């Protein structure tokens, strides 16, 4: 029954560099999630750690995260997520909010 | 461990088992007397001697029914009860205000209460104030040097235990062989609210102290200082604890007592190990920025 942890290392098709500043957004509310995003030298890759009560959707998570990284060309960045049953649409929305906030800071 | 006849609902009998024979004078604490028999009948307050020393006794009467506030029965602490208990504490403080530390009377709380008054009138008038008033009075008495010992004999449930028990310097409990209940909510209700199967919760609660019900688990969390396994053990245990608490206060070791002291005990006994870690982290982070928030001079 323990929480499910998914760790992924993704590489963007075109690397545009890391986010500017470490940023936290969101609340792990019901059907929602929170995101920590921060720059880190990772040989151009993006490291993701996701903690969720939901199991069995690892390929879906990977597709959603890959879509986000392709859209942003993010590289050298660490992303950590606490999820509580968010839908893919909400996941993408929060990731983009985190990205925007981290670059505005 | 042999099962014993429960002390539930028998707060008045427990008083007689604990204090010096025939010494309990109900409805008088210091200069305060509680003359109206219909005022806060669920709360029993008075003065006794314990090992020859003047002691304030505060208990619940499980057989009382407050006719003015019909949600108050079976040991529930209602608005009148909460304020009556607070008055007994303030009267104890006032009576010994001029006395040196070692002569300040002890307070013994006999704990057998299932809850606070859960009614509409209670919410309209603010039940939360009554029980908070009692807690603040107890904390004040404790910090002013009175030794406060809670003796759990039956039900020590959630908010009612917060109110009547958890502000004590030291908490003693009868063991589970007396059917002693210490918890926030029965597991069946927890299961319904947090949406986890009862069987799973039962399995986890076998060895997870932050979650489980009963005096042994509270012991490992530091929530209960000492467990006694027979009613005959209550009186000597309380006399000992009063002496120990008074000694600690005389030595300026207030921080080893009360809710804060129970935090350290919980870490020592392995039941609450996260608490000190996050506190240490905050202390460190604050120390790094404190200068920015100090006034410019």
């Amino acid at each position, binding site marked *: 029954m323990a929480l499910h942890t998914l760790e992924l290392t993704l590489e963007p098709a075109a690397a545009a560099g890391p986010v500017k500043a470490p940023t936290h957004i969101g609340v792990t509310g019901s059907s929602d999630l929170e995101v920590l995003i*921060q720059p880190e030298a990772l040989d151009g890759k993006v490291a993701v750690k996701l903690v969720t009560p939901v199991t069995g959707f690892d390929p879906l998570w990977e597709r959603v995260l890959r879509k986000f990284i392709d859209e942003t060309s993010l590289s050298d960045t660490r992303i*950590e997520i606490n999820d509580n*049953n968010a839908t893919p649409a909400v996941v993408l929305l929060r990731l983009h909010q985190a990205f925007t906030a981290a670059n505005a800071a | 461990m042999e099962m014993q006849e429960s002390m539930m609902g028998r707060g008045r009998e427990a008083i007689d088992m604990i204090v010096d024979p025939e010494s309990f004078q109900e409805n008088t604490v210091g200069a305060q007397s509680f003359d109206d028999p219909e005022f806060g009948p669920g709360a029993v307050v008075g003065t006794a001697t314990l090992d020859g020393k003047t002691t304030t006794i505060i208990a619940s009467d499980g057989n009382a029914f407050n006719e003015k506030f019909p949600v108050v029965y079976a040991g529930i602490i209602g608005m*009148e009860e909460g304020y009556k208990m607070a008055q007994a504490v303030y009267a104890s403080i006032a009576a010994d205000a001029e006395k040196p530390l070692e002569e300040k009377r002890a307070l013994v709380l006999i704990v057998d209460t299932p809850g606070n008054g859960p009614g509409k009138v209670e919410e309209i008038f603010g039940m*939360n104030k*009554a029980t908070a008033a009692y807690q603040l009075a107890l904390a004040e008495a404790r910090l002013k040097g009175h030794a406060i010992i809670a003796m759990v004999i039956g039900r020590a449930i959630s908010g009612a235990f917060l109110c009547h028990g958890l502000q004590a310097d030291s908490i003693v409990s009868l063991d589970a062989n007396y059917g002693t209940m210490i918890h926030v909510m029965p597991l069946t209700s927890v299961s319904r609210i947090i949406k986890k199967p009862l069987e799973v919760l039962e399995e986890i609660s076998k060895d997870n102290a932050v979650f489980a019900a009963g005096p042994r688990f509270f012991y490992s969390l530091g929530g209960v200082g000492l467990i006694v396994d027979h009613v005959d053990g209550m009186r000597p245990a309380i006399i000992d604890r009063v002496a120990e608490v008074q000694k600690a206060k005389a030595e300026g070791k207030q921080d080893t007592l009360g809710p804060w002291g129970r935090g350290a005990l919980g870490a020592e006994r392995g039941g609450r190990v*996260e608490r000190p870690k996050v506190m240490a982290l*905050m202390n460190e982070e604050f120390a790094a920025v404190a200068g920015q928030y100090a006034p410019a001079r």
Partner: protein
Amino acid sequence: MSNWQNLQPRSFLEASARDRALGLVDEGSFTELAGPFDRVTSPHLELLGDAVAFDDGIVTGIGRIGKTPVFVISQEGKFIGGSVGEIGGAKMVNTIKLAIEFHDDLVAKHPDLTDEEKPVVVISFETGGVRLHEANAGLLAHAEVMDQLQKARGKVPVIAVIGSKVGGFGGMGFVAAATDAIIMSEFGRLGLTGPEVIEQEMGKEEFDASDRALVYRTTGGRHKYIMGDANFLVQDSIEAFRKQVVELAPLPVSDFEAMRRIGSPETVEKQLRLVALAAEMQPQDAVDVWAKAGNENAAGLLDVPFAEFMSTVKRLAV
């Protein structure tokens, strides 16, 4: 406009715990302690397979209002109803403790310390009390908070702000009552027993928990203001709450003592006069008490506009 400026006109009711914490203190002055980057999450939730939060659902830190250091505790109702577990409870306890220690340090260092340079604590409540997933640890933390509130007496004023969705209930209803000054919006709710439990105890005919207006009449900001349980009633924006805190922050601690509802033999006497009134009236509804306080249009009080309410309402005096 900066993020802080954007926050000011926002609804307090809808605001997250972190936005409330940031917005209540001066722009750019807030330092979070044990914040999300520390990643202190609850192992007890993890064991149960439930989602965790990097701040365990509570924002703690220090900011400034003018010359006053302001220690802030802000609860996040969206995370398990703002419930208090081992870590969140410890963060709350330790914030008050740090404020008291900081006060003592400053007083020792600066004999000329002014009232407005002394720290205050602000608690933004949004909670039903104990987190059932780690109930015992949460309960013990509540007792520690009460202990710290008493230790803060005469030194560090503690201000409660209540205007978030969940309100302040359960054991945290005690804690709120035990603070020095309470600021509410009309959407804030304060009490001990949640509506569902009252319904269960008394029956649906006596108390229908799904009746929103009834719930607000019984525990809402306007009612608590009439009863004297809320010292101040403000509009639902971060800047309105902030304005009230700004007014209070520099006051001497003796002024706060005078705002208390409980915490002394004298206040207990006064509360007992209210309890005697409750016994005598046996009100069926809070409206009965509003009428008793001298409000001619008692039944309509919940519906009149805020400004009209504030200018015409009569508060209960005993």
